């Protein structure tokens, strides 16, 4: 349950037996070929896995390095998150539980959880900050359409971290029949390990696809890091490949210097949040500081403990990418490749494009394109000022 000083179980004793049960069930299931085969089948037939590996040729031409994209945006529900929810929901069934709860920020993990719940016929309650339910009304509608109950959280800052607090509270009260389907590689052990195991297919697939397509491994693997599930998902397969450099790009928000960001590893201090010891954005006393990012999915003041460990040991490098740099990368990808990615994923791409300038020409960069941008179009319109009516066709008579 620990990576160096990071990880652990900093939760009420009331949850320990559930965590132990979960740990045991996970260990058993990972050794059960029938479980793994069923999960594999689900991924293929329902989740649309494996996702393609895509050489972005026009982008590569512009940057001078080969930019390869792992197209997780093409998965069912539009992001890598389907891997995690299918795994945990199948495990929930295996444990004989009939209900899942989840926290969500912008609503993506909530929608994914509601999707898995619908698929498996599980009850589902999603905790979401009240502010977020208003800003992301369409995702609330998606969850309700999928049959989930959405509970607006009115405590604290009314955003993701408070939704997570509330989910933990609710879990204490319902732990006998309810699984807490956590959305990232954070939280108490075994969650960071569990979620990583369900997401590591990203990297396992990408590594094999890369070898098949190029006969080599990439020089750099890049991903965005909020909680860090997509990044752990793609990093894990490459941890043993010493020549492959791993880069996690955190949300730099308004700019690292402004203090309004979500660059937890770059700017945070070691602490305990939501059940694990990791880097945390916190003040001198250890009170959590609110994070800021244009990307709702990266807007979280903690980070998965395994990332904290990779940062501390130097195996992976973590750097901030601010809103402007991410949005520029999002636009560039749209215009050169016809792919509108999630703003989260645009942070990973932007970091890779920045890095490319210092790489030898022809280097191979693998970026985890963790999700699609449909959910972000409201932000895009606002950011680029696309609101205005385009000019009406004024042809002369």
């Amino acid at each position, binding site marked *: 349950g620990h990576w160096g000083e990071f990880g652990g179980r900093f939760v009420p*004793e009331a949850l320990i037996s559930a965590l132990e049960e979960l740990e045991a069930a996970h260990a058993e299931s990972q050794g059960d070929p029938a479980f793994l085969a069923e999960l594999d089948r689900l991924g293929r037939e329902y989740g649309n896995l494996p996702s393609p590996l895509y050489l972005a040729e026009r982008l590569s031409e512009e940057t001078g390095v080969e930019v390869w994209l792992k197209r997780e945006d093409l998965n069912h529900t539009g992001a890598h998150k389907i891997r995690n929810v299918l795994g945990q929901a199948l495990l929930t069934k295996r444990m004989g539980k009939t209900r899942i709860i989840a926290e969500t920020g912008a609503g993506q993990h909530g929608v994914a959880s509601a999707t898995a719940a619908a698929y498996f016929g599980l009850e589902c309650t999603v905790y979401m900050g009240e502010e977020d339910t208003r800003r992301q009304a369409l995702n609330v509608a998606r969850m309700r359409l999928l049959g989930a109950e959405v509970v607006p959280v009115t*405590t604290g800052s009314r955003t993701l971290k408070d939704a997570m607090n509330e989910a933990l509270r609710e879990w204490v009260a319902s732990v006998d029949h309810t699984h807490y389907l956590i959305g990232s590689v954070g939280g108490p052990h075994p969650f960071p390990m569990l979620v990583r195991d369900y997401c590591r297919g990203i990297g396992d697939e990408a590594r094999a696809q890369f070898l098949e397509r190029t006969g080599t491994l990439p020089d750099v693997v890049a991903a965005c890091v909020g909680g860090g599930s997509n990044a752990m998902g793609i990093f894990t397969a490459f941890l043993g490949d010493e020549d492959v450099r791993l880069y996690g790009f955190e949300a730099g928000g308004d700019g690292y210097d402004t203090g309004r960001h979500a660059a937890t590893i770059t700017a945070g201090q070691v*602490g*305990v949040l939501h059940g694990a*010891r990791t880097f945390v954005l916190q003040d001198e*006393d250890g009170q959590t500081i609110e994070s800021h990012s244009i990307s709702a999915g990266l807007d979280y003041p903690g980070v998965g403990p395994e990332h904290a460990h990779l940062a501390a040991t130097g195996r992976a490098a973590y750097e901030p990418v601010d809103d402007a740099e991410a949005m520029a990368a999002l636009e560039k990808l749209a215009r050169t490749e016809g792919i509108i990615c999630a703003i989260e994923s645009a942070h990973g791409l932007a970091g890779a494009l920045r890095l490319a300038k210092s790489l030898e020409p022809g280097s191979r960069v693998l970026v985890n394109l963790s999700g699609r941008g449909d959910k972000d179009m409201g932000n895009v319109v606002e950011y680029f000022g696309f609101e205005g009516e385009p000019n009406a066709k004024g042809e002369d008579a």
Partner: protein
Amino acid sequence: MRVETAFARSRAEDRAALVGYLPAGFPTLADSIKAVDIMIDHGADVIELGLPYSDPVMDGPAIQKAADRALAAGFRTRQVFEVTEAVAGRVPILVMTYWNLVERYGVDRFARDFAAAGGAGLITPDLIPDEAGEWIAASDAHDLDRVFLVAPSSTEERIASTVAACRGFVYAQSVMGVTGARAATSAAAPELVRRTRAHTDLPIGVGLGVRSGDQAAEIGAYGDAVIVGSAIVNCYLDTEDIPSGHQRLAELTADLAAGVRR
């Protein structure tokens, strides 16, 4: 005062001890001191000072709100020592705190400063003995009590290992739920106390949900201490007028103290 001293007294009187909880800095820093004095004056045997935290995952809405209010007013961790120093002496003062605040202050430094202020020990709702190596060392070094929690979901094995790490008393989370949940009549509580008793001679405090002397009496029949939190906080949450909050707190504490004495 040491926790064991307070329990020795309540045991001698063949009754449960009354543990009153209030976040330090709530309703104001000065009034939190006043409120503790009121509780002690009206029969509280042990005081549990909450250390306000931004993300209190084990607390219900009442205590969350109280903590938020203290933080919004600028409460700083070190001020818990001021409060402790001001009220220590008559009854043991414990601090209930989420772990990040202690880690951030420095575990040994916190223990030292708290002990110096006259504090008796810590209750740590999100720290289990398995993760508590540094705290166990520091509490030993500074002679502080360590109160860990047991819950209805705890296995026999975990109850055994948890009580073994405790000093002062054991906190039995009587229902599966956050603070403030109404379940004073839960069947789970006596069962948990019974199971815990099998593993330790330490006093067992029962928390969560007590609002009245009647409920206190019911719990006092099987628990060694009745822990009251949300009901106390509510004395101040329900009113803008702090003096009338003090008045309500005095009445509530008296009622609870009578309850544990029935």
